[in-house]
């Protein structure tokens, strides 16, 4: 399968790779997917006053999965939690020109964003 230039670009130069301390107050962590399915994404957000000031990811998966999560971290930086919650996988599909068989990668990235926000909210619900 031929990859789009944008997928290749993100795959070769992934943005925001790394790990935040899970225990940190300002951090929310989303871990989605399964090794047996061939993709696992971990996306973390750093939140200050309801705004995502930083994001990091690590992904086990195909090039499109890596590109989707890399793009997702770029998109949410600077957004409020409410704004980030409205991100749809179709935005990622469009931006990366993902073919139909790779749409699940964008869905997983959307799930990862939501999971990270949920985690942050749960930890601050008390």
């Amino acid at each position: 399968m031929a990859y789009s230039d944008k997928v290749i670009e993100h795959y070769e130069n992934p943005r925001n790779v790394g790990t935040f301390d899970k225990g940190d107050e300002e951090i929310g962590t989303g871990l989605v997917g399964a090794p047996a399915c061939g993709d696992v994404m971990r996306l973390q957000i750093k939140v200050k006053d309801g705004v995502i000031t930083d994001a990091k990811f690590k992904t086990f998966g195909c090039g499109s999965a890596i590109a989707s999560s890399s793009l997702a971290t770029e998109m949410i930086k600077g957004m409020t939690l409410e704004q980030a919650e409205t991100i749809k996988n179709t935005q990622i599909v469009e931006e990366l020109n993902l073919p139909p068989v790779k749409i699940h990668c964008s869905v997983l990235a959307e799930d990862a964003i939501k999971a990270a926000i949920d985690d942050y909210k749960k930890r601050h619900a008390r």
Partner: protein
Amino acid sequence: MAVQLPIFMDNHSTTPVDPRVVETMVPYFTTMFGNAASRNHVFGWTAEAAVEAARGQIAALIGGEAKEIVLTSGATEADNLAIKGVASFYRKQGNHIVTLETEHKAILDSCKRMQREGYEVTYLKPGKDGLVTPEQVAEAVGPKTLLVSIMLANNEIGVVQDLAAIGAAIKAKNPKTLFHSDAVQGAGKVPIDVHEMKLDLVSLSAHKMYGPKGVGALWVRRKPRVRLDPMIDGGGHERGMRSGTLAVPLIVGFGKACELAAAEMETEALRMRALRDRLYRGITSQLTETYVNGSMERRLPGNLNISFAFVEGESLLMALKDVAVSSGSACTSASLEPSYVLRALGVGDELAHTSIRFGLGRFNTEDEVDYVVDLVVKSVNRLRELSPLWEMHQDGIDIASIQWTPH
């Protein structure tokens, strides 16, 4: 170190045609273009003589006779003809077929079709090493078993079955059961003797052994005579088993490819093994958490199938963009399922997704192997830095203990 890119290391999928093979084919496209079935002029006779010579070369590779070669469009057709043709012809004598879970789809799908037509099929499960034991096969054979089909070498993991022992076990259990082997991957690489292996039918393909695409053969034993119902009716070519005008230039090339493979097998096997071992050592001495799939001892000299834990196969293929190899990862298949071969071996899906198949061939060099080793090591390390699973593994977290959400 001067390597030319891209590097082809996917010789199980196909092989380039050897220039010596091309050379023998060329005249049969232009000046000697006759129809081998034309009995009344020199063009036909020349073509027929060339085809007969090629049959001899093909048969010699497996210890058979020229007259026993049924030429086909390739091994998929040969496999179909063997399974369906035998099952149909002998249906009054039984209804049972035995095969292996790790066979090529041409065998498995033919067997499934026969099931839909009322035959019973036993799919044997190989061991963790990819090998089936003669005892396992014998146990599955009964009085109603028409045919056993066991491949010589596997196309993904390269493991080589012990056909001589399996053939003996089949015949001891039921002398009437016919024994077929899809020998596509092994032919020309490891020795085959149809008599020693007690084979009745053998499928071969030219393009896996430096011959042209579009031609293959089914060897069908004459003594004692093995019969089958044809699938293609027409002019009664190939002793009535496969009608259709013979592709003379392709057949001539197939013959030459077999001759070369037979002549060079011994030295070439040593060279392949040395390259493969260099590849294996280069990778495993620099990377941890790698797992070879299938037996290392009984394996084609040019095959290495290895899982790189925590690195998804397709993403690794993407990093190896100037190197043609293949992966058992689901992402590389249309079905989105990881390799059924690795699954049959009991390899977990998470490791199957990380497998890469290297298929070394006649035209690979030591420099190419060294280049690939460096690239693989560099790429796996980079992708592991990107992998949350690798990080968890480094932190001592058991990946299996996590509640994953399959999607």
